[in-house]
């Protein structure tokens, strides 16, 4: 295997055995970017030269922390001091954050080096990364397909070996769905486990930073780095620190898995269902107890999600007004025009659609019918999960109803695009942790993923359950992205 194909824990083993050097690791990824980025288009900003300088510094100072000098990729909605943070929007085309996000401080404390900022749907709104102002990222398995979204750049970069791992963000499935589409592991932690400080807000009550990695162990390592309370984010939880790499080999014997029947309805592709059934069979073979369960308010979760997410987005994106930073129109003769034209020209279609929708559901006379109702349904969704977690340790479902679709095939049909979130959205509504793990490919060779949902702060459980599967079914060793044209 090439260096860029290895997981981070494999790289660490080789470093320990002195079979490779940190410099060789960086060079391998740099070369891979040179070779494949033109096909994949995963990056908005490449900072491999800075990474090189940082590595030299690290070696000069003889810094030996475990992850020092290891590369990473960062979704472009996570603020990085000194490097552009665009959110894939014209609005922030030249924006450089004056501060580092809390997760970046943690990454920097580890002396990890960033290879660059990864493409995404504009302000994380979308499920295909086609809503980026800058470029369309391609799925490394088939360059005619989307990588999923909104963390499509992060997922594609990990799948293509451009970065060993990456940070993404997940508001309604934006880490898990692209992970599923690109055949990598995507972890969305419990709301509150990771500080949101410095993550450019889309929907504050749903947003959570997550990881895209080649396997579950890497997810555990990266989660160790970024998890923890942050006094700058009052919605972040104060909890005892867990070493997630130490919870991975507990097995699944006697573990109770719930399979919500609503997740296997007509909207779910046949090949996806088959793949998931094989996963279920695998868990049964390993000694887990699998039962059908019900999440019947899940039907309303998607509508609830789009109301809450858009409402919060309409408010969160108000600050992009052309006054202090970001895009400002050249065409204005008064304040109203300055606002109107800056925002009309600076935001893309999907962002504007959601701002308008969100403004509508919050407006007086409609608030009770939409936003308030949605909050009530949100409570019901939470309760329903709570009920299920009294019986089950984890809930298992497909990550997405289908595999990655063709580029441009859904761009004009927002509703169809939104339906791709149907399996992932309830998790954000309830603030739960979930992970997507690749479990095979369809007849066209496109990856399929399944999702494990845990109870609040049960990352250790879902990582262990995911890891157990991964040990038996070595997806990564059996399938590789082919960059089909």
């Amino acid at each position: 295997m090439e260096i860029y194909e290895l997981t981070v824990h494999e790289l660490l083993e080789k470093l320990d055995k002195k079979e490779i050097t940190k410099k060789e690791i960086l060079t391998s990824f740099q070369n891979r970017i040179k070779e494949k980025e033109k096909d994949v288009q995963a990056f908005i900003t490449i900072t491999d030269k800075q990474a090189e300088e940082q590595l030299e510094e690290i070696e000069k100072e003889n810094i030996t922390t475990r992850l020092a000098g290891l590369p990473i990729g960062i979704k472009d909605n996570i603020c990085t001091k000194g490097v552009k943070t665009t959110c894939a929007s014209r609005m922030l085309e030249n924006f450089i954050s004056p501060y580092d996000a809390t997760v970046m401080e943690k990454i920097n404390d580890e002396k990890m080096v960033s290879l660059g900022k990864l493409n995404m749907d504009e302000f994380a709104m979308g499920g295909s990364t086609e809503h980026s102002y800058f470029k369309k990222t391609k799925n490394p398995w088939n360059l005619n397909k989307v990588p999923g979204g909104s963390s499509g750049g992060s997922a594609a970069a990990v799948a293509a070996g451009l970065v060993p791992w990456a940070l993404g963000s997940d508001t309604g499935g934006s880490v898990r769905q692209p992970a599923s589409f690109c055949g990598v592991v995507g972890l969305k932690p419990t709301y509150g486990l990771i500080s949101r400080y410095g993550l450019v807000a889309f929907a504050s009550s749903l947003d959570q930073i997550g990881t895209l990695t080649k396997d579950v162990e890497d997810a555990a390592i990266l989660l160790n780095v970024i998890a923890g309370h942050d006094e700058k984010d009052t919605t972040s939880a104060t909890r005892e620190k867990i070493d997630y790499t130490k919870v991975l080999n507990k097995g699944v014997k006697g573990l109770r898995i719930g399979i919500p029947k609503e997740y296997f309805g007509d909207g779910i592709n046949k090949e996806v269902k088959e793949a998931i059934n094989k996963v279920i069979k695998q868990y049964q073979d390993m000694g887990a107890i699998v039962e059908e369960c019900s999440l019947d308010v899940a039907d309303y979760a998607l509508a609830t999600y789009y109301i809450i997410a858009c409402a919060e987005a309409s408010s969160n994106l108000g600050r992009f007004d052309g006054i202090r930073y970001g895009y400002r129109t050249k065409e204005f003769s008064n304040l109203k025009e300055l606002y109107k034209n800056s925002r009309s020209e600076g935001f893309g279609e999907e962002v504007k659609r959601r701002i308008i929708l969100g403004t509508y559901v919050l407006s007086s006379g409609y608030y009770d019918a939409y936003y308030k109702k949605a909050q009530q349904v949100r409570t019901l969704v939470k309760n329903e999960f709570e009920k299920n977690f009294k019986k089950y340790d984890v809930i298992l479902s497909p990550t997405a109803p289908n595999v990655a679709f063709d580029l441009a095939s859904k761009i004009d049909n927002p509703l169809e695009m939104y339906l791709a979130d149907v399996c992932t959205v309830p998790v954000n509504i309830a603030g739960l942790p979930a992970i997507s793990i690749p479990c095979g490919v369809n007849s066209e060779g496109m990856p399929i993923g399944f999702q494990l949902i845990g109870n609040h702060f049960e990352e250790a459980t879902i990582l262990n359950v995911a890891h157990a599967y991964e040990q038996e079914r070595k997806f990564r060793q059996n399938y590789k992205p082919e960059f089909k044209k």
Partner: protein
Amino acid sequence: MSREDYEVVIGLEVHAELSTKTKIFCSCPTEFGGEPNTHCCPICMAMPGTLPVLNEKVVEYAVKAGLATNCEISRDSKNDRKNYFYPDLPKAYQISQFDKPLCENGYIEIEDKNEQKKKIRLTRIHIEEDAGKLNHDDFGGGSLVDLNRAGVPLIEIVSEPDISSSDEAEKYLRKLKSILEYIEVSDCKMQEGSFRADVNVSIRKKGEKKLGTRTEMKNMNSFRSIVRGIEYEIDRQIDVIESGGKIEQETLRWDDVSGKTFSMRDKEDAQDYRYFPEPDLVAIRLTEEYIANVKSSLPELPESRKQRYLDKYKLTEREAKLITASKYLSNLFEETVLKTNNPKAACNWILSDISRILNEKEIEPNEIPFTSDNLAELIKLIEKGTISSAIAKKVIEELFENPKEPSKIIEEKGWIQISDEGAIKEIVLKILETNPQSVQDYKGGKDKAIGFLVGQAMKQTKGKANPQMLNKLFIEEINKM
């Protein structure tokens, strides 16, 4: 019909800046002034990705204000976003409180025109953040945004429409201001905008149950303008109704120079603030213990100070009331008494000359430029006979202009009283020589003539002669004649 046929209904929304050291959602200083955009950070400038963290002091101060105004304190409160676009509002929403304010259902007592106690009910007190400021750019012609004030904590105190005249409005505001000063949650500097009021005025025919349509004057920051604004608005509304017109519900701008209100047309297309719960902050839950602790930390309130002044310093009801109306006057009084042991003199100076100058200068007691040390020294100088009260009045004037020790002032100005008997006798003889008529008058039984003669002597010595001595010597000398 005349003004007497109408009843006036006034409700006030007061914004008071809290005197916490740091802003409500970040650790920038709240200090007034400073070069534009120097008391700012990524959070209060609303850089992408930043999050608010609620300053606990803000909650404490608001709870104090609530307790001092007889409010119920909410155990379960939260923050909400009020969304609107304006360049001084960097997030495009103000974090405020909508349906669950920290304090509700309070009241403040004032005296109505018949000196009867009247309760003005408070609907609520909630916490929120202040916006920045727009400055006109004299060079570029546009507007410049200064975000130093953005995120300074405010409490908004909303009254019920229980106020029925400009006089009551002023009394209510003065009382509220004095309470906030006493409990030290706001410095209430009106010029700096740290205590400002939105004034809602409506009128209705006497006996009418339904409230009339109200107009609102925003951001009024002097008692004088508030009183004038209300008076103008009452007259204007009566005129409109009397001439068959209808009052429009609108926001008005009071113009101090012309003494008129003007419609602020632009802002009037019915703002929809799209309030919703602030998802970046957790709910504010207060325990009984917390509230009890805040309650026990409240300092002595004006009512209780007043009683103490009646009992201990033997001030009259009126004097005690006037002095305790302002915490600054009250503190000046207590400190001066402590240093002079002369409550009567301290009270007199504060309520006569000092209050008169405050009025003339239209400044607030907290802007008095001299200290209780200065006032105490002045009182002692009079007691010792170093200066006359006439000179003392001039010293007080001077203290407002050029505050320094009174002894230095009288020395520099040459105002030391002439108490040398020889020198005074010389003056007395000279005055008697030129005023034979007064001598006759006095001898003829007109005691007032002495007053005239003393006045003449004071005039000649520019007030420096010791008046008691003059009095004594005039009588002695005339009797010798």
